[in-house]
């Protein structure tokens, strides 16, 4: 992917650059808002990572300028302050996701993957398929290898998210936000418990494991 990174903190910038380039992405970087905006308007990126607090022009203003110029590049905000207020503000201004520093690179990577979904995939589908697992969104039913599987509401929503993000790693935090709308970190095993129950229903009785755990990063659904 082609990624734009605008971050003025050297340590963070290096950390992210190393990680992204190590994963095979092409990255352009800038250290202030004005340079960053120039790059964003000039070239087309698959995703942009912007720090909230930037010299020259802060991340929020930069985003507004981008959207104003009809640049639809998906944007992920980074912020040092674990602000209860900031997240909503950023999302309302047009950001696609939000991550507070310090963060683990794996989390950043997972979220980046999620927001840089190709637009064509957003077309409404009535059916989702991964290998022999099929989900009918209209009838709200799931089958694998032709056999019907009974799922509770939340289990269905969880599986739907996985199937829509096939192959992508979804972190625990992402799952909590998207499936349960929890914007905090529970001290108990909410995610793990539901994953294990889902596995028992869609994986255990079958030969191939589809739902994988990526240690210390998250989960993914793929063959």
């Amino acid at each position, binding site marked *: 992917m082609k990624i734009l990174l605008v971050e003025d903190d050297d340590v963070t910038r290096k*950390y992210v650059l190393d990680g992204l380039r190590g994963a095979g992405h092409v990255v352009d970087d800038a250290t202030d808002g004005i340079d960053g905006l120039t790059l964003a308007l000039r070239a087309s990126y698959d995703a942009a990572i912007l720090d909230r607090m930037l010299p020259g022009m802060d991340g929020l203003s930069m985003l507004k300028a981008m959207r104003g110029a009809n640049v639809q590049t998906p944007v992920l905000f980074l912020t040092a302050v*674990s*602000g*209860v*207020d900031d997240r*909503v503000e950023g999302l309302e201004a047009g950001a696609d996701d939000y991550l507070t*520093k*310090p*963060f*683990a*690179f*794996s989390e950043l990577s997972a979220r980046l993957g999620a927001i840089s979904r190709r637009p064509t995939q957003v077309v409404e589908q009535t059916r989702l398929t991964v290998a022999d697992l099929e989900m009918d969104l209209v009838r709200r039913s799931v089958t694998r290898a032709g056999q019907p599987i009974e799922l*509770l*509401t*939340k289990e269905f929503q969880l599986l739907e998210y996985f199937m829509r993000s096939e192959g992508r790693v979804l972190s625990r935090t992402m799952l909590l936000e998207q499936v*349960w*709308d*929890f*914007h*905090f*970190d*529970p*001290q*108990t*095993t*909410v995610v793990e*418990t*539901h994953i294990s*129950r889902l596995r028992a229903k869609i994986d255990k009785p079958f030969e191939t494991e589809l739902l994988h755990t990526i240690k*210390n990063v998250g989960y993914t659904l793929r063959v």
Partner: protein
Amino acid sequence: MANLGAGWIAFQAIHDDLDRRVEQAAVLMSVELADTFERDGRDALVEATRARATALDPEDDIVWLGLADGTFLAGHRLPDPQDLAVGDVSGTRLGQDDDDTYLLTSRQIGDLRLITARSYEDTDDIARTVLKAIGAATLIVTLLAALVAFILSRRGQLRIEAISSVLSKVAAGEMQQRIETHGHSDDLGRLSERINDALEQLEATVVGIKQVSADIAHDLRTPINRLGIQVESLTLEASNHPALQDKLNQASSNIRQITNTFDALLRISQIEAGARKAKFRAVPIAGIAAALYEAYAAVCDDAGQTLLVSSNMDANTLVHGDQDLLTQLGANLIENAIRHAGQGATIRLETGSGLNGVWLSVSDDGPGIPPEEYERVTERFYRLDKARHTPGSGLGLALVKAIADLHKARLRLSDAKPGLAVRVEFKPFSEALKSRD
């Protein structure tokens, strides 16, 4: 009181004085007529008596001249002169319509008897007037004194109540409350100023402590996280050494625990500082309960516990608040119950609404906590288990309290007999909008 006493003494003195004058008047008339007899003889006396009787009004003065046997010679007519003795006599016995009291004198002049009498009526009138005046004066003074005393004591009472009220608010957590002194420099005023100084100190100390812990959390987050990243990289590098990798994973887990604690601490600080107030919306508490049940039923099950939810989705459980924070509040209460209620416990999640508001409650039938700990259990890092062996950061309930306070909701702990019941009471949405600050 003093006024009454003084008035009474004055009145008595005046009354005695007036009585003496009556006596003097009666005696004087008697003496003057006796003089006339001495100077001019018997006929002159008779003449003088007749003249006096004509000039004088028997309602005021009475004079009678006659023989020792009671035969009338001159003056006013008396019904029964023989029966009259010196001193106070009722007017009726002197032939008058009124029974006013007269002072009567009797004198022997030669073979004649001279009776003079003076009525107390006038002086009595004067005395009554004086008494009324004194009485009225006393009454006015007493009323004024009572009024002034009442006003002073009421002012004093109000000021004491004001001081009391401020102290209660501060105890409840409103650290910035102060007593209004209005420039009074009396005892209460000086006391108020001293109390305000103490409250100032108290607020600064509390704010300072909170700030320090928030600063510590903030400053340590970055190095802790870098540490976490380093351990993560080491874990990847140690993929050929499972035993080492295991240990490194444990280290990672510990580091995550530290980060969680700091995050929770920072979140509490922000919430206390009033973050998110502007983003308040109408939030249905019953909906939050439903979402929490969906998330936690399985978790409880795996922990050998049962989660029950009871909330009427039709009831109006709208509250003016922040959905995310309220969800976290409910989640913390449930997690607290999971952690402490023990195996086999039943945890109840309930919501309801009534006239005075909307409420959410989480109760369990576990060991509960002793009532004397209710106050302290919502403090940051407070642990019932003083040796701090049980899991958890000790911040869960502190966060619940911070969120409840932000929503101006009341947090109540009680004995579920057995177990612990925690109830959060909110003002209904319509009312909360009215009292928005």
